[in-house]
């Protein structure tokens, strides 16, 4: 009798751990995509825009913002995402006028402010490109929990692994939501409308 009880308790405990653990894992993963305020994204940074202006986290306050990390030696994801963002803004029209879009380079060694200016300018005159020293880049990435890493391609070439989500920040400069790389324009624009409605 006692032995059965012990086994039963052990099974219940094991199940609880599995269920609880799964719930925690799921909520953590969903947190970065769907929730408001449960993930600590956003924080201090000091970067330079393409026109030489200094931009800090204070400059995000007063308008909703999109923040995306990438680099210009990126043949596919970064240009595609910037083109997508431009498409979202077109769809929003004047409703989205208050949105500021920031493209943050994770590759300041190659991405100068001048190059960044012409790069993002190709997609929209509204985009702001931010760059900084390696230390400043590390700081902004840490604030946004954005991952990046240099990967060698041989012959002196390299690419950067990087977080591809577009971060939505509200008028107070706080994290609102994220649009993942795979999101359809419909989903993305819906999230942007919610961001704008929360203004």
């Amino acid at each position: 009798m006692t032995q059965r009880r012990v086994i039963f308790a052990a099974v219940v405990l094991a199940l609880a751990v599995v269920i609880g653990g799964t719930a925690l894992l799921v909520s953590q993963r969903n947190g970065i995509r769907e929730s408001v305020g449960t993930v600590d994204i956003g924080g201090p940074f000091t970067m330079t825009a393409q026109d030489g202006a200094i931009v800090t986290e204070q400059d995000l306050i007063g308008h909703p913002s999109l923040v995306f990390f990438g680099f210009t030696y990126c043949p596919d994801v970064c240009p595609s995402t910037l083109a997508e963002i431009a498409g979202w803004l077109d769809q929003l029209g004047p409703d989205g006028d208050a949105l500021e879009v920031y493209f943050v380079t994770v590759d300041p060694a190659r991405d100068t402010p001048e190059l960044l200016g012409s790069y993002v300018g190709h997609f929209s005159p509204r985009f702001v490109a931010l760059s900084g020293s390696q230390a400043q880049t590390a700081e902004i990435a840490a604030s946004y929990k954005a991952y990046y890493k240099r990967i060698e391609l041989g012959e002196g070439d390299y690419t950067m692994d990087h977080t591809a989500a577009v971060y939505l920040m509200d008028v107070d400069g706080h994290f609102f939501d994220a649009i993942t790389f795979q999101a359809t324009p419909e989903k993305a624009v819906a999230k942007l409308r919610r961001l704008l409605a929360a203004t």
Partner: protein
Amino acid sequence: MTLFSHICLAAALVVGQSHAASAHDYAAGAISIIHPWIAEPPPGAPVAGGYLTIANDGDTADRLVEVMADFADRSQLHRMIPSDEGVMQMRPLEDGLEIAAGGVVVLEPGGIHIMFMRPAVPLREGDSLAVTLVFEHAGAVEVEFRVQATEPMNHEMDMEDDALDDHDDHMDMEEGS
């Protein structure tokens, strides 16, 4: 791919069998190369992405092992590695790209692509660039990549997406000539 895409592909293959290349297709033995294109990069961008569809009508697998372009300092085949954490990882296809017997491989934004590094000329919509594709069995094929505006990504690659098909019709591209 949708049924429509399959029909377009079949049509392209039928047409592409002859060496008189139609519209924008090429043939080399059992291999058909359909609509090679480059996404127009921002001016001065150090890299550009190249895409195309490859069909293998033969009984044995073939492999695209090399891409050579005079206009670019270096060309490499890359794939995107999916990641749960939303981290973009691009890796070279060290052994090239296999096309199974009877198979079709589509290189498209967000998936497999050719990275053309340090183009020596500006790449603007409408331009055509000569590129040689080298296949293990089919050999070297010279094709022209057409520069066109960045295409929307194929969002049907996302499992959790609802069934909106706005972006899946990539076979539309081959009709432009």
